[in-house]
């Protein structure tokens, strides 16, 4: 739990820095009399959302010996700045406690936590940071970078956005290749027994933060 709160604090800190950077960037614009009226409503339209205490799920699945295996990360934190009319100004950040995963079996969990696979001792967090959203053929996508197992790679994460009573819910599915991130050393480099593709399925309940 300590890790979880540490992660939340980290997210909050990142968000605060981001907000500070945004306002710093805006202030020179505010000096210009003409640009100011246009910039202010745009900034105000970005709504800040944080992950609700419950109702979120970050699942993953992979093929092991020809059959699909499922797991999930139980501890992760999400921050979203969203402006429906200005996706480029929107951003998404997710921090996952890699050691919080569960694949429903102790033996498999122990194996996956080992130094040849996910190795949460050495890489305790994974981060997805998207500095903008965009509208692609399949709908809205967060365009960002996934930092996992010490490797950073570009990743587009599709988002289905649904409005809820307290904010919104984002969900979707993305596929990554574990070997791209070095998850699988030694014997695990072969994809014959454990597939390279890892499907991520996410549903995040977000609470709107009024500032």
């Amino acid at each position, binding site marked *: 739990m300590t890790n979880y709160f540490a992660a939340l604090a980290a997210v909050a800190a990142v968000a605060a820095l981001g907000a500070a950077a945004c306002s710093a960037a805006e202030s020179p614009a505010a000096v210009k009399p003409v640009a100011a009226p246009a910039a202010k409503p745009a900034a105000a339209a970005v709504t800040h959302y944080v992950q609700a205490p419950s109702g979120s799920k970050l699942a993953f699945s992979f093929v092991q010996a*020809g*059959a699909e295996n499922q797991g999930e990360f139980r501890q992760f934190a999400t921050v979203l700045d969203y402006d429906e009319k200005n996706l480029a100004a929107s951003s998404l950040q997710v921090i996952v406690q890699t050691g919080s995963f569960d694949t429903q079996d102790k033996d498999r969990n122990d194996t996956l936590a080992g130094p040849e696979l996910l190795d949460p001792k050495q890489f305790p967090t994974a981060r997805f940071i998207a500095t903008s959203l965009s509208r692609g053929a399949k709908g809205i996508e967060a365009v960002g970078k996934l930092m996992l197992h010490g490797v950073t790679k570009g990743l587009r994460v599709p988002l289905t956005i649904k409005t809820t009573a307290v904010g919104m819910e984002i969900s979707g599915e993305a596929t990554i290749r574990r070997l791209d991130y070095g998850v699988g050393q030694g014997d695990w480099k072969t994809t014959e*027994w454990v597939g390279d593709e890892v499907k991520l399925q996410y549903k995040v309940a977000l609470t709107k933060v009024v500032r």
Partner: protein
Amino acid sequence: MTFRNTTRSWGALSKALHWLIVLLIINQWIIAERAEALTGFAKLKVLGYHKSFGMTILMLAIIRLVWRWMNPVPDLHAETKPWERMLAKISHVLLYGLIFAMPITGWLMSSAKTYSVSWFNLFAFPNLVGKNDGVYQLTHDLHHLLFAALVVVAALHIAGALKHHFIDRNDVLKRMLPFGGVK
């Protein structure tokens, strides 16, 4: 040797299925013993083969049972005593039961532990039950217990076959041998 069984002897398919299953069961035992000592990737791989061979045995057992229903079963000799007939019947029923029960308990324990069963990584069999520690423990223990039972019944089966051959001096053993010809 005919393809189908006759009332005198086993046909080619029955013999092939009998001996193929014997070889696969011995192979299963060797693989399982090896897997016990392993961990991680090596264990996953070796047990992956064990499960694939196990499902092969299950499929062959189904073919074998269907084929048995579609064919005559060679008669025991007239001089066979009633207690011998009874013992043979019981051991055959048990052996058939066990070649089904072994893979099914294995499939159940894999399902309950969420380690799905596949056939040589080519396709996966559906899980019979969801994650369930109780079912896993029960079927795991049964899998081991039933194997011990299989060894005992198989020993009885072999002893019976040898008695027919060496003491009664009839062709009961010979008619199941791969190239043992009985018209």
